[in-house]
């Protein structure tokens, strides 16, 4: 008979006041729980951003299951194929043959010719010492008119160098072929979601006579290849930075890392860097800041002293956001995060100093499975995990900052907070949809 095992109220191990929390990993690494919030993107969603590309995953059935159904839920199985590794392959060590012949078989059976293949290998290839360069070399010989790139589903490596997510975001641009750089052309790279065109980056670029492209603007492979002509790549996510560094080394595109922030000074500084790179005088941001202050005041009148909780999936800078809200009178009552980005160090220190009792909850710690998932008063959650753990129907359904950046990003987020606070959402239904914004149903 099913019943809630819970009733557990002792939060020790799953919650720490931020004043007592170590940085950047507040909690011990133990068994992991995975809650039902599924809005963050995975490597299948991200790979599909390359237009006219076909994804092929080679791994064990258990690992294929999640990625196949991700593609199926995107209604994209016609761009997705698999090669299943079985026990005999591990025992016989015929991993190279399986990969080469498997990809060949799939490409011969496809009813269309993809411009590119994203070939995802797995932990097994890594551990068995599969000769991947040989495999790619053979495939390029066999299919000279198809571009191949190496992608990885090897989560066992997530604590060794670049994570699969970083590798995937780097892989997104690995197919770009060197071409002459266009001094007036800029790309924004590393994002799953497109950047809101209202943000100041676009205004500054327009003023300086530059054009900005993102992979989301590229509806065919040729357009995608034109990104190789950008003289500057902007990146504002830590997980995208490795891709930018690779492009800088390979194609000579200057990487401009302009981290997302909710701090006026930091935003002014990074936008100033951008303007200077483009050779224009940074605008006076006082009007933008005043508009943010107005928006904050307005949001505060709507939300009042209701509890506000924030999770790390909503934005890459949850601590910066918490600081902004707390300094403007919002009642931020909890953060949900298992670790923090190095960019958050100053915000973390500020919160420790000014709000040491602010609770930080883990999201994967085993007790989170049984701790009560409800709150006694109307709570505004920013992010799906925050909504799940508080049981709140009032939540901002957003991942990866939603593409909202800069001063305009702050204003947009505040309007989303107001809207979320006033209109109930079907939390159960919405948060279980995979890859928010990728077209999954």
């Amino acid at each position, binding site marked *: 008979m099913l019943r809630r095992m819970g009733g557990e109220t002792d939060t020790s191990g799953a919650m720490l006041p931020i004043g007592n929390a170590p940085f950047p990993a507040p909690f011990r690494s133990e068994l992991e729980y995975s809650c039902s919030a599924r809005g963050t993107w995975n490597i299948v969603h991200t790979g599909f951003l390359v237009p006219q590309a076909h994804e092929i995953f080679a791994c064990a059935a258990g690992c294929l*299951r999640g990625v196949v159904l991700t593609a199926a839920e995107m209604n994209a199985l016609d761009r997705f194929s698999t090669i299943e590794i079985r026990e005999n392959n591990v025992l016989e060590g015929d991993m190279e043959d399986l990969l080469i012949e498997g990809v060949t078989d799939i490409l011969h059976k496809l009813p269309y010719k993809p411009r590119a293949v994203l070939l995802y290998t797995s932990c097994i290839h890594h551990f068995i010492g599969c000769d991947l360069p040989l495999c790619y070399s053979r495939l390029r010989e066999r299919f000279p008119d198809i571009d191949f790139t190496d992608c990885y589903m090897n989560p066992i490596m997530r604590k060794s160098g670049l994570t699969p997510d970083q590798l995937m975001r780097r892989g997104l641009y690995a197919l770009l072929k060197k071409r002459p750089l266009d001094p007036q052309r800029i790309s924004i790279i590393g994002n799953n979601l497109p950047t809101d065109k209202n943000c100041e980056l676009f205004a500054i670029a327009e003023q300086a006579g530059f054009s900005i492209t993102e992979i989301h603007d590229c509806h065919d492979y040729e357009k995608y290849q034109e990104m190789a002509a950008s003289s500057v790549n902007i990146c504002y996510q830590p997980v995208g930075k490795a891709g930018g560094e690779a492009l800088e080394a390979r194609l000579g595109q200057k990487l401009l890392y302009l981290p997302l922030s909710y701090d006026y000074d930091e935003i002014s500084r990074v936008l100033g860097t951008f303007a200077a790179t483009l050779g224009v005088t940074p605008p006076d941001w006082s009007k933008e800041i005043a508009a943010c202050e107005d928006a904050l005041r307005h949001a505060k009148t709507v939300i009042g002293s209701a509890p506000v909780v924030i999770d790390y999936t909503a934005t890459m800078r949850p601590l910066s956001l918490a600081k902004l809200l707390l300094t403007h009178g919002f009642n931020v009552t909890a953060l949900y995060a298992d670790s923090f980005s190095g960019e958050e160090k100053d915000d973390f220190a500020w919160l420790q100093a000014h709000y040491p009792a602010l609770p930080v909850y883990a999201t994967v710690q085993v007790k989170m499975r049984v701790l009560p998932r409800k709150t006694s008063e109307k709570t505004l959650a920013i992010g799906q995990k925050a909504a799940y753990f508080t049981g709140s129907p009032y939540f901002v359904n957003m991942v990866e900052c939603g593409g909202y950046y800069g001063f305009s990003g702050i204003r947009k987020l505040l309007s989303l907070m107001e809207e979320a606070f006033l209109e109930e959402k079907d939390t159960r239904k919405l948060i279980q949809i995979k890859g928010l914004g990728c077209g999954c149903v």
Partner: protein
Amino acid sequence: MTQTARIISTYTADVSGVNSALFELGGMTVMHDASGCNSTYNTHDEPRWYDHDSLVFLSGISEMEAIMGDDDKLIRDIVSAAQQLHPRFIAIAGTPIPMMIGTDFRAIAAVVERKTGIPSFGFATNGMHTYVQGASMALAGIAERFVTEELPKTDDISVNLLGVTPLDFSVNGSAEHLRTALEQRGISVVSNWAMGDDLETLQKAPSAHVNLVVSYAGMGAAKVLRKRFGIPYVTARPYGDWTDTIVESIRLAAKNGDSMEPMTGRINPSAVVIGEGVSSVSLANAVTYETGIQVRAVAATEIERSKLGVSDCMARDEDELMPLLQGAEFIIADPLYEPICPKTAKFIRLPHEGFSGRIFRSEIPDMTEDISYITQAIAGRS
């Protein structure tokens, strides 16, 4: 064989099968995996995840732990979680990398049990088999460990339902209707392994006369209970009127003590059903029984050949499946099989959680008492 799938899905893996089978029994299951199995299981393989707090976790094994063979961290983490959550039992299941490094799950379970005093199991799954195999291992483990006491038989003929998971029965009432379909025919149900009954109820299994293996996930437990208590088993899933034949087999098995697989004559099939072995054979029998149209069952998950009819077969890959579908008048299968089916065949959608997960859940019919969903679709063929 290229082991490729140009377009079709893949079945839930053995490790998720362990989780699914044990979900309602009050234990704690740990998947020894780096990442990925957790979200795959709770997103695509487990419809009960959002509403019910079963304890299923991931070890998060890292490259260095795998290279160094660091089982101590796994054991330490399991013990820590068990001390916080007090499960009835602990199950540890494997994935590809633990298989490659030769992880001894039984030994780890023994150490965990010694440290916690909680009954613990190790299941050497590796993510390379289907859920049927993992669930079968898990239910066999429960039978071995918790069903120990010989009990007097019930007065009426009774059964245990073995191999009931949402992966084959979804959450549409099918699991509950197994019970009513049998009770209407004078067969009582002692226990359901394992949807709807708790561990204490499963421990009453020896009081049943017969085990009804309703999916191949129940076969491991059936064999344990046969060996330990001499309970015969009937391998069949109730579907519509064909349940009458199953009940005859149950009565015969109770009387003779012989295990059996009821079967209709399907020597020259003109149609195909693809899916889990026992379900497919049973549905093929049921459709043939009710319509006279002979149907071939294609078992896409593990099953003993002896449980299949003469025209039935096992096939898993696209390359194996596609020739079997040529010339079929109609094909009953999960919608994600449709792209590889010949256009000349009428395709009857039968969504299966174990193949397409949650995508078509709302379409999954409960055909326990009535297969008109299929017979009407057949009758509508032009």
